[in-house]
């Protein structure tokens, strides 16, 4: 049986699901980045797992109640630790660029820090920790320990991002893709949505190989986290 032929069995469309799949797979193949959360369309709520920069333990939040309108549960959370600092990138993923919205950065941040009567993730208990990246978990008996993330000895730097599929999302010939126009769109979305990271994605060729274009805010771009993200997506750049 011919593998090349099998790889030409491709989806009729990719959309938000395709975007989420690529990001998930890229992050998980990267040794310095940690995927704290991934919730592609069709997935049921599982857990958010954040790595403590001090103890290197992984902490799990395995239940988050319904989120009110003032907050938005991200589709993906990517983590990078540098010394005591925990860097997080909360990503909103959509099918197309026009699905972006003005309050994106604010509502994503509210998910973590809360707003009004809504207690954000950081005000909620983490119930379990793991020393082996989730292979086995231990229940946290100490109530104070469950709120480890509020420990002032470490700093949390939260960035937000928006990812989407280009329109059209598929290019038989990649030369027909409007690179300059798409780059302008990415930067425009970065400004309008007040996020720190925008990534557009498309697919090309008979096997529908994914390709990406991405842009960063000045704040994220100059950090080691920003560099790690850029390096992670290099293989998919055009």
């Amino acid at each position, binding site marked *: *049986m*011919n*593998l*090349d*032929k*099998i*790889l030409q*069995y*491709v*989806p*009729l*469309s*990719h*959309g938000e*699901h*395709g975007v*989420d*799949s*690529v990001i*998930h*797979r*890229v992050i998980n*193949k990267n040794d310095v980045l940690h995927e704290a959360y*991934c919730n*592609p*369309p*069709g*997935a*049921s*709520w*599982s*857990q958010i797992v954040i790595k403590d920069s001090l103890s290197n333990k992984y902490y799990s939040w*395995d*239940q*988050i*109640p319904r989120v009110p309108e003032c907050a938005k549960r991200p589709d993906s959370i990517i983590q990078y630790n540098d010394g005591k600092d925990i860097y997080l990138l909360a990503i909103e993923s959509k099918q197309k660029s026009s699905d972006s919205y003005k309050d994106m950065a604010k509502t994503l941040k509210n998910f973590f820090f809360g707003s009004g009567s809504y*207690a954000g993730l950081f005000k*909620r*208990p983490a*119930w*379990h920790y793991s020393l082996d990246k989730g292979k*086995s*978990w*231990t*229940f946290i008996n100490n109530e104070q320990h469950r709120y480890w993330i509020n420990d002032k000895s470490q700093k949390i730097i939260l960035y937000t991002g928006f990812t989407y599929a280009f329109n059209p999302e598929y290019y038989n010939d990649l030369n027909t893709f409007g690179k300059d126009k798409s780059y302008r769109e990415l930067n425009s979305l970065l400004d309008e949505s007040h996020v720190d990271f925008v990534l557009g994605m498309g*697919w090309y060729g008979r*096997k*529908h*190989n*994914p390709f990406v274009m991405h842009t960063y805010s000045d704040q994220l771009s100059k950090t080691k986290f920003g560099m790690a993200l850029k390096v992670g997506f290099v*293989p*998919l750049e055009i």
Partner: protein
Amino acid sequence: MTSNPDFIFRIYGDNVLECELFIDWLKQNLFSQLKFLEEVGPIDRPILIFEDILKHKILAFHMCPFYGGTKNSIWPNNPLVGIFDEKPDVLLVQVLENDTESKPLLVVEFDDALQAGNQSWQRSKRAINSARSQIPYFYVLPIIGWERDSEGIELKSPRYQNASITFGQLSLSTFYKIPSFQIYKKTPWAAHAKKLGHTLPKGFENFQGIESAIECACYFIRKSIYGESNLIKPNKAVRNIISEMLSVGSTYCDFSETSMPIHKSHPALLDTSSASEYFSKLILDGKNDEKSHYRLDNITAEYFFKNGTTFFKDAQTKTTSLNFRENVIAKLNWKPKATRKQKEMWLDTWGVKIPSNETPDTVILKNKDKIPTTYKEKKSEAALINNRKVFRQIIEKAYPNLSQDILDWIYSNKKSDEPIFFIPLYGYKPTGDSRPDRGLLPALFSLFPRLVTKKNTFVLVYSIHTPPNWEKILNQNSNELWNVIKEFSGLLIVDKTKSGVLIK
């Protein structure tokens, strides 16, 4: 790139995470006997190449995530068609020489959270769809969960397995002679529950369901390509899974709100070791006639009446009609706290007389075949009713405009020799949502496949929120609640419109 493989499979997954969970199974080479070689193709839809250590062949698994719903698959092929009404998490097919696909080889459901209460009915339809098409079905779920407060900040109480779903899958396994397995996943909540003294299945810490499931899944993959005669059957792994299911079932069938008298006294639970051995042979060999009394799917009406209990169905005043409460459910519900006079009247309705030296409570135990009897103590969802004549009178009085053929379906002099399996189905919440009730009929069929027959199953939909145009929805075949009613029942009556229909 590796030279072309000998066999190619597609892993259709609800999303990329589900595909990866199945790949993780294959990568556990101690149990899969597959050696991972490499990954090729686009990063979001790769092909993973393995060597089959047992047969020295190359197997390729193509990840096909987000295979969409039953109507809108994003992939050119839709492996659900003609088999599944709902989409399982992971479904495996083989790519055949002519570029077509085999029927699904196996299905796996990965559940991170234990479903609460009646929510656990929801996967029953997928289990039935699989079993009917001879597709092995593996439902992976945590051994125990934990309830929180509405904000998710405070812990409340443990969330236990629903034994009726466990028994339902065991029953499907032997009824269709194909695995319909629950696989219990380790969770840190179990250690916490143990520490606090909560009930857990005996030996849960040594459960090896996942490892056994991997072995079984790989057996069914190999069976599809090499043929059964060229393989050693995974008897030990199947026995292990069944033994763990029986352990879970026996732990939670006599527990809190889920006491199940028919099942807790069943021979399969009294001798789980022999029952596991028997089930394993029956499922893998397709026959084993020696000890059929172990089969949970073999529960007959006689056994049901002998071991069942009196029926009680809770009906809320806010969501049900007075007619339903007073003229239907009150006539079927046995109330242990009622006065002697009330009990005498209730028994009299069902044609049961009380000898002078006995009380209603002792008489009722000897006459379960004459009154509505159920499988679950306290609140229940269905009743087996032998006295069809009295039942017809009750229904006729409550719904006087029903047609003669509907009433004759319940009872007529010429037929009606088997008991009715009666299911009062709430159906619609005030929001219009029909979950989880759409899962009740499949769950009951799984439990009692020889009793929940179209010929004898009567569904009464009683929510006051039922749409008045229900008959139109029923005929459109596009609503899963009405679809399951149509599939499993022979008679449907809707309290809201006081009308009904016979279903062919």
